[in-house]
């Protein structure tokens, strides 16, 4: 095992560009972090979850899927190099694992896998979160994990590809198992409040303990910007449209949003989810209750993006917190205010 500086890592990523289409966290013009190429801006490994949908690298906002000319249909040419994506958090790796399953269960989404197959995933964790926050160590779900000890990044490998790649990295200092164990202990000791919160909210929603007027109240705050869907790594819905110019037709797909009326509207104009609050409820119900039945677990992995992008502060964590506060079981120590003598 070895630990590399950000500069050494930069050189390493540069050295593998001949074999991989490398995407990593960079700083854009105004400092916003995003997945980009090395030449697009300064490397910004530290800082935690990137603001954009991390799975968007395989499932972009807008993507050409077919081209028809003179009766011939062509799919876009395959990429000449596989992707190597740096900057996933542990939660992002969980999301990716789910999206891989989603896009390969019952049907296989070739467009998605045309980018995903052969891709190498590099997680970033440890002492490099926003405001000094410690980022949970993934320990799986990626090929390489760069765990920051505050000075350098320790390169842990979880696949043969990852191992072979890290061996190509120049420089670095050796790291003992004890140092890694200490970081793992710190990771294991991170509080699980958010996870407990989501589970508690999931149960309450599943048990139908959240009344309609709560969802109406949340729906009243929603301005239907759709950002919760657009930022969510596990939102996979898309719409398809054609662009015709002369004798050429291009078929594209574009991220869709279940917060829009048009998402579930029938051709007649009728919409079983015709009210805003019902769509807000559905979105949370889907991830926290329906998916438990479908997949055996909630499909929010607590990446926190919807809470950050929501203009009205009704991201999934905020709403779950409110659900648990309002409808959750009271702690045993708290007296029940039901006329009992003071």
């Amino acid at each position, binding site marked *: 095992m070895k630990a590399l500086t950000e500069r050494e890592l930069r050189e390493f990523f540069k050295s593998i560009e001949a074999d991989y289409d490398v995407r990593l966290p960079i700083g854009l*013009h105004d400092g916003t972090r995003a997945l980009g190429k090395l030449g697009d801006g300064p490397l910004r490994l530290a800082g935690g979850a990137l603001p954009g949908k991390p799975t968007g690298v395989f499932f972009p906002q807008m993507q050409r899927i077919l081209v028809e000319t003179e009766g011939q249909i062509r799919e876009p040419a395959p990429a000449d190099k596989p992707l190597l994506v740096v900057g996933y958090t542990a939660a992002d790796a969980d999301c990716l694992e789910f999206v891989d399953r989603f896009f390969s269960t019952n049907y296989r989404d070739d467009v998605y896998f045309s980018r995903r197959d052969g891709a190498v995933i590099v997680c970033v964790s440890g002492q490099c979160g926003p405001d000094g926050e410690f980022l949970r160590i993934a320990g799986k779900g990626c090929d390489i994990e760069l765990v920051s000890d505050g000075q350098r990044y320790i390169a842990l490998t979880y696949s043969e590809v990852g191992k072979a790649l890290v061996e190509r990295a120049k420089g670095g200092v050796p790291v003992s198992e004890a140092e890694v164990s200490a970081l793992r202990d710190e990771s294991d000791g991170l509080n699980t409040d958010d996870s407990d919160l989501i589970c508690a909210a999931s149960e309450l929603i599943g048990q139908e303990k959240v009344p309609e007027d709560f969802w109406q109240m949340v729906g009243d705050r929603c301005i239907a910007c759709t950002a919760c869907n657009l930022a969510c790594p596990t939102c996979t819905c898309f719409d398809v449209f054609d662009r015709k110019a002369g004798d050429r037709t291009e078929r594209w797909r574009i991220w869709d949003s279940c917060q829009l009326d048009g998402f579930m509207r029938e051709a007649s104009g009728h919409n079983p989810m015709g009210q805003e609050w019902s769509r807000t409820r559905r979105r949370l119900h889907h991830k926290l209750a329906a998916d438990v039945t479908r997949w055996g677990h909630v499909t929010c992995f607590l990446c926190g993006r919807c809470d950050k992008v929501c203009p009205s502060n009704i991201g999934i964590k905020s709403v779950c917190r409110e659900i648990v506060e309002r409808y959750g079981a009271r702690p045993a120590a708290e007296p029940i205010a039901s006329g009992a003598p003071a």
Partner: protein
Amino acid sequence: MKRVLTTCPYCGTGCMFYLVVDDDNKLIGVEASTEHVVAQGKLCVKGWNAHHFVNHPDRLTQPMVRRNGKMEPASWDEALDLVVGKLKEIQAEHGNDSVAFFSSAKTTNEENYLMMKLARAVFKTNNVDHCARLCHSSTVLGLAATFGSGAMTNSISCMEQADCILVTGSNTTEQHPLIGSRIVRNVLENGAKLIVADNRKIRLARIADIHVRWKNGTDVAFLNGLMNVIIAEGLEDKEFVASRTENYEELKKVVADYRPERAAEICGITPEEIVQVARMFARAKRAMIVYSMGITQHTHGVDNVKSCANLAMLTGNVGRPGTGVNPLRGQNNVQGACDMGALNGVYSGYQKVIDPVAREKFEKAWSVENLPDKPGLTVTTAIDAAADGKLKALYIMGENPMLSDPDQNHVRKALEKLDFLVVQDIFPTPTSEYADVILPAASYAEKNGTFTSTERRVQHVRKAIEPIGRSRADWEILCDVAARAGYAGMKYNSASEIMDEVASVTPIYGGVSFERIDQVGLQWPCTDKEHPGTPVLHSGKFARGLGAFSPAAYRPSAELPDEEYPFVLSTGRCYFHFHTGTMTRRSQLLHREERFPYVEINPKDARELEIHDRRWVHVTTRRGTVRAMARVTDVADRGVLFMPFHFEEGPANLLTNNALDPVAKIPEYKICAARVRSC
């Protein structure tokens, strides 16, 4: 793939975001900027979809000229020679003022500056205006008269600092969503009081402390009623009134006639509502007024604006964070287009054309002589002049009066009567159908420049992709026109050079340069290179010195319901579309969301008329009939219909009344008499 930081082309909030460009020069997405002072990593639905229309196959990609009645492709040389030749010929025969220029709130500051320079310096006419005439001309005049500056007094961040917010005539969460969401957060998280004074039950009304559903058009009576109560109960800010204002006695005299009982009767509400609102607003430490088209688009629009200003001054709510009179500008650059002087009576920075000193200054700066000295035609009066045969030629950049102006049949007749019409745009529009020359323009994503947001923040627009087809940036086209007309003073290597010229002749933009706004925009006034910009206007002193109370008496709207036309028809925008729909109706998800022209009607009215939801109805006014889909909803009050004006196939503006405010010449889009029946 690359990402380019630019400013949203929709409303005036001024969110910046990154356009995502693929390797084929196509836009494939939008990413939010986490660092931008307004957006803060968030966007509205239009912002998230702002890339979509740019590569639409309908884009105009080559110049077109009319030959034997048919529009045919032409070279840029042929098209521009024809434009200049015809405009000169018409001016030679009918005088300089026989041609007019419509500038555009969708284009950059630099382009608006050049359009007004082209009209004034090259074609020697003040017939230059743009669609601010149709939205906030009453604000510009009303606030200039009371405060000395016709712009939003405060900053968007102030929305989260106010203790009480009066939102009137603004559907903020739909039309300025990232401002609306700040109001939502302030109310629900900080406990700020929210008063919504609006006939429609807008989203903000759901969380308001008080929702006053007054009769449309009774704004002055309502505001005077509030001031009557405030004075009667001694809730005015005596020190502010004494030290910062003038003409208070006149205000007292006028509002004395609006006791709550009388005001309530005019407004169709209860006297208690007026008293309650007056107390809530006046007792707040920091109270702000937020308004938009519901205040301005009336034949008494200027009076409405002045009354808002009066209320703010009476309660001492000007010049501090969290207060102020905050007109929300509806277009990405409508503030900038006004600032640049794309108005009939002013040069950039609101320097008046009737002022000989200003004229001399611009004559010197532009190396020309004899700049015209009388205000020219406005967007609205130019159409009237064309219909009367007095205006012979019109050059329209990025506007679509066939859908945006009142009384479409009147506009059609006017355009048909013109000898020569030039339309410069990114998509074909109902207006371009009447053009003799169509010039294909580059979209916001294909050029550099600046937009000025509603909070007076000058921000970058950056080129993300090359212009589509043979389209060109508006500023390049305008420079080419000027050169062909024999004027040597409009040659620039970049948009940045144009802004440098703007800064040199425009005191409020004196310190603005592309370099200074690279990371964060500057809020004008920004008078020199060291000036940090001005987040809050009128601190310590009004722009005009003392704030002038300008009381107004209530005047009824021009066309009120009667037996034949029993409904009030009000018009505006919906959340998912923008203005005449040229961009949003070519954006997949936005178009899918609202596909048809519709009219909102109250459930009780619908029941009485046997009108059902999602069924087609005819809406008729004295100007004509439009087919629209009924939307039965309690958002509409009884007796009131609401129609958005985005739809070519159901144009609300075929129905509206071309009655104008006597001062601002703004049309009364918010009120006309109508009837409705099932198809």
